[in-house]
């Protein structure tokens, strides 16, 4: 049976070290299984957040060999065993303990987004062609891997000005909803700070649900911001026609 060494971050936001643990690699084992094996036999106090072990709850996010991943969807046999496999908490959020981070900032951002707002006396009939776009965004499992990898949050740390890709996905799912009537574009520009995104697509690269975050959510929202704020001709058209949107 092959043996792997996991080099795991142990500590919290103020103090920490990296510790090596050896585990036997069993067939079909994922990194989360290895962490559980370590928890079960060597380090019962190892803190790991998980829930479904099926890639659907979004709890087990961490960085495996430097790559933001769901640990329950990262197979051990996909990783080279000749060197220790590093497992670190998500860099962008404060560590509570070991691999568990405090992601509560994300919930605060979420509250800024105007919820689904149908018009009065809505006829609740929808056609597939109108909700195709939105369905992709509904796949989000809130793993926050996209938030973690986004350099605007990770390196520039402008959490006060920028909402991050997960919330552009949510805003897009509402803005493009055929029955929604709220205008979130000013909020997307000012409060979620979409202009800080420089469309470098790392969020798309890490999304375990393979949502085309940049192409299908962020860029279309950027274009909507252009409609309302930057396009001089549309501005004139709105002035002349008195319409709110053009």
């Amino acid at each position, binding site marked *: 049976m092959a043996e792997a060494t996991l080099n795991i*971050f142990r*500590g919290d*936001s*103020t*103090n920490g070290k990296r510790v090596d643990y050896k585990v036997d690699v069993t067939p079909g084992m994922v990194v989360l299984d290895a962490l559980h094996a370590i928890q079960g036999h060597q380090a019962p106090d190892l803190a790991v957040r998980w829930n479904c072990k099926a890639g659907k709850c979004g709890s087990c996010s961490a*960085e495996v*060999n*430097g*790559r*933001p991943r769901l640990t329950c969807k990262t197979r051990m046999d996909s990783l*080279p065993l000749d*060197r220790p496999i*590093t497992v*670190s908490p998500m*860099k*962008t*959020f*404060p*560590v509570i303990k070991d691999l568990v981070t405090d992601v509560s900032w994300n919930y605060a951002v979420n509250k800024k987004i105007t919820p689904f707002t149908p018009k009065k006396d809505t006829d609740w009939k929808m*056609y597939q*062609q*109108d909700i195709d776009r939105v369905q992709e965004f509904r796949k989000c499992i809130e793993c926050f891997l996209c938030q973690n*990898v986004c*350099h*605007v949050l*990770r*390196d*520039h*740390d*402008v*959490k006060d000005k920028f909402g991050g890709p997960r919330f552009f996905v949510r805003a897009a799912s509402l*803005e*493009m*909803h*055929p029955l*929604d009537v709220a205008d979130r574009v000013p909020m997307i520009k000012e409060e979620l*700070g979409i*202009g*800080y*995104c*420089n*469309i*470098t*697509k*790392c969020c798309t*690269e*890490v999304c375990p649900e393979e949502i085309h975050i*940049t*192409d299908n959510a962020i*860029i*279309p929202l*950027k*274009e*909507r*911001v*252009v*409609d309302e*704020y*930057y*396009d001089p001709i549309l501005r004139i058209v709105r002035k002349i026609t008195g319409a709110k949107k053009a």
Partner: protein
Amino acid sequence: MAELHVLQDQTFGATKRRDAWWAEIIPVIIVLGGFGLYATFRAFEGKFYQCWDLGIPYLSPFYSPLIDAQHHWWHWSPALLILGGPLSFRATCYYYRKAYYRAFFLDPPSCAVNDRGHKSYKGETAFPFILQNLHRYAFYLALIFLAFLWYDAVCAFDWNGHFGIGVGTLIMTVNVILLSLYSFSCHSWRHLIGGKLECFSCSAASSARGSGWRFTSMLNERHMLFAWLSLFSVGLTDFYIRMVSAGVITDIKIF
């Protein structure tokens, strides 16, 4: 989150990634940088851009539309008069932005690889990058250029009043097709044709725009591919015409 930074290496370029993440940006630096140098040289060169003097109906895409070739009022290379159009289209393209922000500004160099982490980062909220928001105007301009290039490609079949096909004709035709695919897979176009609508089924017009949006979305998935193919084709088309015009190679007439 400053506390965590104490525990994680904040130095520029630091990462725990083991793969060759830099291998993604090196080809971009070489190809975009190389194209930039070649295009600059050709734009300033001011000659060998057409083959009409040899009885061959080719015009380089770097010089189309050709303005004041006789230097009545413009004393420098005619390419300099028009270069801004295609340049602004590519420079503000959402795909190229990703490519050069990563490869040339290292912002970020790659995913989960530290960028400079500078606090002055403004992204596309401040000058000069706030101008990227005008990409749709560069698209409108690109359509005008595209019309000229289609005209040039059609003219490349006209050999002194007779239908003919040379190697250059084929190159110019493939080039304008790739440029069209690149232009009509544009994200701004995808928005304008129908992406901005909330409801595709609400009227005949919105349904037609919905179909346009779906078709553009299909092209848009390959926008990166078209961006590179059309960059190569435009450079190669110019290079071929330059070689023929300078007499270095002879164009082969196929038909």
